[in-house]
């Protein structure tokens, strides 16, 4: 057997967090823990890049498979990746070191525990993206609640308790139905192995109910309207690194789940529920964009924009066209980078001013010119300006949607305009205008860590905006195969 590279990816951060737990470090600086965490998360990033290098993009089969008996005769621990999952794994390992670096400025108390939580979170998220067994997937998916609950609750803002509870209970409520569905699948087919289920398929008459059970979990996590209300609260109250993890990766679990499980396991039900998804996605795109326009809190605005962007993602997935699905995955990666960057940017000024209200800012351009430039890049990426990664994703999704429904695509396109409205207005109110407050005059421009984080995020955003090939090539075969499987299933039922 080859080197178990996926399990190493999952285990490395946990081992790192154990080291941090037992390491002795001066309580006020915590230098050792910081370097340990950085070292581990960078190591994981390099390992995941190596994984990408080894990855064979010419096949849609699952690669790097590992299978171990876990609960005897019942569930196997099975991991493996295809073109879809590898990108999310790299996104996770890319964002985590940045979160670790960012704690320098943002986390004041109990730094060690925070780093442990972040690293455990990384392990679990990687686990979600590479598990090929429904129960194992559920385990990773649910387990992430514990560290995230603590991250929001311990290091969050004023209403952290409320937000942490809301986050936890909403997600748990969504997920328990998925557990029922997973167990039912086990009794229907005798297995929870995803690759095996792909081959044998699930009886058409059960698919709708099972699909709904999975949907209830993913819809909360995505989040789709009307169960999106936990997201703004959680984002606003979480510390910067927490918001970043939440927006950049946690939300992607649901999009990934839709592709891997809802579409992959229940193609007939997915076809049946297309109108529902389109409706909810359109509401998310239009309605939350309007809500975002009205926000006075920067983090809340970005949180609502996340809901709108994820609306594009669900729309794209359920077009079942190559463009739409590739666009969705691209959009998720891009949104992962852009929303992370935006939350980091908000974090930068929040650390200086200790307020997130937009009205308290204005005229930052003359005080913090470097900040104004990087924020410009991210704002434009969030809008989806050509030349940034945001454009490619939205453009592909809209192409895919136009193939299916002209009306839906037209309405969705309006969302792009609204995105421009709220993001540019936000930018205008923060960066331009007169300096109303004296405190602003004393602000320092980006320090070294902040500059490193933001430029590391800006680089791939622009790179993939001009040259999306590496990402698209990686997912292409997997997506084509998925769509082919989907079409076969639909044709079978029609005949």
């Amino acid at each position: 057997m080859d080197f178990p590279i996926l399990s190493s990816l999952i285990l490395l951060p946990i081992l790192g967090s154990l080291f941090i737990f037992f390491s002795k470090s001066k309580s006020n600086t915590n230098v050792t823990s910081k370097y340990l965490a950085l070292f581990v998360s960078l190591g994981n990033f390099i390992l995941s890049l190596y994984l990408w290098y080894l990855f064979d993009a010419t096949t849609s089969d699952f690669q790097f498979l590992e299978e171990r008996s876990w609960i005897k005769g019942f569930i196997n621990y099975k991991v493996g990746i295809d073109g879809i999952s590898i990108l999310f794994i790299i996104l996770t390992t890319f964002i985590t070191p940045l979160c670790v670096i960012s704690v320098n400025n943002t986390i004041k108390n109990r730094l060690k525990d925070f780093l442990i939580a972040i690293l455990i979170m990384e392990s679990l998220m990687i686990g979600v993206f590479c598990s090929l067994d429904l129960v194992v997937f559920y385990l990773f998916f649910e387990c992430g609640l514990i560290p995230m609950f603590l991250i929001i609750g311990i290091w969050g803002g004023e209403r952290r308790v409320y937000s942490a509870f809301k986050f936890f209970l909403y997600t748990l409520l969504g997920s328990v139905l998925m557990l029922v569905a997973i167990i039912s699948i086990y009794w229907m087919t005798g297995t929870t192995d995803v690759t095996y289920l792909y081959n044998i398929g699930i009886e058409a008459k059960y698919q709708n109910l099972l699909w709904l059970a999975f949907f209830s979990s993913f819809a909360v996590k995505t989040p789709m309207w009307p169960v999106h209300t936990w997201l703004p609260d959680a984002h606003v109250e979480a510390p910067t690194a927490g918001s970043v993890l939440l927006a950049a990766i946690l939300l992607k679990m649901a999009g990934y789940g839709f592709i891997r499980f809802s579409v992959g396991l229940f193609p007939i039900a997915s076809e049946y529920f297309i109108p529902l998804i389109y409706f909810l996605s359109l509401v998310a795109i239009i309605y939350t964009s309007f809500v975002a326009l009205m926000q006075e809190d920067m983090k809340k605005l970005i949180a609502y924009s996340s809901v709108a962007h994820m609306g594009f993602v669900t729309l794209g997935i359920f077009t079942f066209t190559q463009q739409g699905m590739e666009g969705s995955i691209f959009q998720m990666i891009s949104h992962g980078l852009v929303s992370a960057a935006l939350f980091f940017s908000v974090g930068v000024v929040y650390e200086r001013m200790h307020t997130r209200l937009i009205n308290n800012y204005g005229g930052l351009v003359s005080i913090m010119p470097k900040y104004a430039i990087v924020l410009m890049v991210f704002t434009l990426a969030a809008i989806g300006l050509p030349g940034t990664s945001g454009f490619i994703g939205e453009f592909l999704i809209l192409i895919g949607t136009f193939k299916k429904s002209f009306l839906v695509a037209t309405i969705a396109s309006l969302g792009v305009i609204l995105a421009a409205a709220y993001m540019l207005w936000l930018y205008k109110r923060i960066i331009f205008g007169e300096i109303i407050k004296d405190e602003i005059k004393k602000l320092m421009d980006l320090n070294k860590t902040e500059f490193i984080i933001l430029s590391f995020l800006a680089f791939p955003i622009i790179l993939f905006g001009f040259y999306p090939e590496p990402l698209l090539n990686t997912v292409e075969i997997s997506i084509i195969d998925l769509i082919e499987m989907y079409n076969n299933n639909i044709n079978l039922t029609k005949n």
Partner: protein
Amino acid sequence: MVNLNFIYPEIFLSISIMALLIIGVFKKNSSNLIFNLSIISLLGSLALIFNFPINTNIELFNNGYKIDYLSSFMKILTVSSGIFVLLSSNKYIQIININKIEYPILALSSILGMMVMVSSNDLILFYVGLELQSLSLYVLASFNRDNLASTESGLKYFVLSALSSGLLLYGCSLIYGFSSSTNFFIISENLTESSNGLTFGIVFILVGLAFKISAVPFHMWAPDVYEGSPTSVTVFFAILPKIAALTVFIRFLYVPFLNLIEQWQMIIIFLSIASMLFGAIAAIGQKNLKRLVAYSSIGHMGYALAGLSTGTNQGIQSSITYISIYLFMNLAFFSCLFMLKRDEKYFENIEDLSGLAKNHPLLSFSFLIVLFSLAGIPPLAGFFAKFYIFTAVIEESMYFLAIVGLLSTVIAAFYYLRLIKIIYFDIEKEKYETNHNIGLKLSLLISSIFILFYFIYPSWLTEMVEKINMI
């Protein structure tokens, strides 16, 4: 000639109880000695259980006493949790001054009663075991006799429990009347069709048993008794009688009355749903940790009953797995509770936990994993307990039960989260003492490690439990 080999554990335990009584009477100030000796005699009894092959299947005393895998497994659970309960509460009983010679002896005799219960294959023998168990518990509950709450809880438990025992006896007599035997085997042979009298008999016995495991609507005693009793007795209440009563549930429902499953299945489902929902909702408003545990254990018994209601081997096995994991979680929770001590005083209110994480990171971490495990969040052991239950329930297509159960998990998660919130997010209070005795540390360590690392190799428990086949 009856082969007494197989009841050596019980014989050994009863002889040690009598010997300890004599030592206690004739030797002055021997309470510590008795305490240690009683732990040793439990260990001896545990060793004797392993003396014969654990998968023996044998009936003694005119088929009235059954030694099989189920009884041996449950005896091991009972005795070993008895050892841990005594170990962890050693310091507690010294400090609140109930370290009398009777205390460990009563605990032992209650354990003896439970051992008889889990092996009983006959209504009369089962009742004898049950009463031995209960009578010892009445005294234990009111053991802190200078304390009003403790005496009240003992009396309350006695009155209500006596009532339920009466109902149970009445049920036994009805069943004897309609099946002309008290032996489980003969009952099952004689019963070919159901009759009203028999149904009444089953219902009365189920009421009595439901009382013992505090399933809704026979749960009223639990919160008061849990709160009023000394904490060392509350642990006892929360763990041991439930193991024994659940075994009796299994034996009673699945040996003589398996054919009448239509008669009792709905009752168990009702008990289960009511307990799960009530336990989850009523715990939300509690201020006292012991009271909260009472409600949470009501909820947990609901899950265990959900497994039983399926009428399949899978269901029984899942219930037994549940109760085994439940045992560790409760042991860990109470061990944490025993550590909240300052100036010779124990703290048991929720607000006393405030900001514990600041001063006691390890203790808070144990609390954290125990509470998340009780809430059933993966990857902790509590999740697997619920997972097995729901697997068994869904196998029988009882989706309603499964969904109600899972929704009450979400409700219950709220109050567990509230505790975590108080421990981790709130402002800290004074430090607690950290000089705990080794027994307490050991029981917390073992149970926490079990909860935290159960997921790495879950098969070892399932493989043991899978050998229990009732049908």
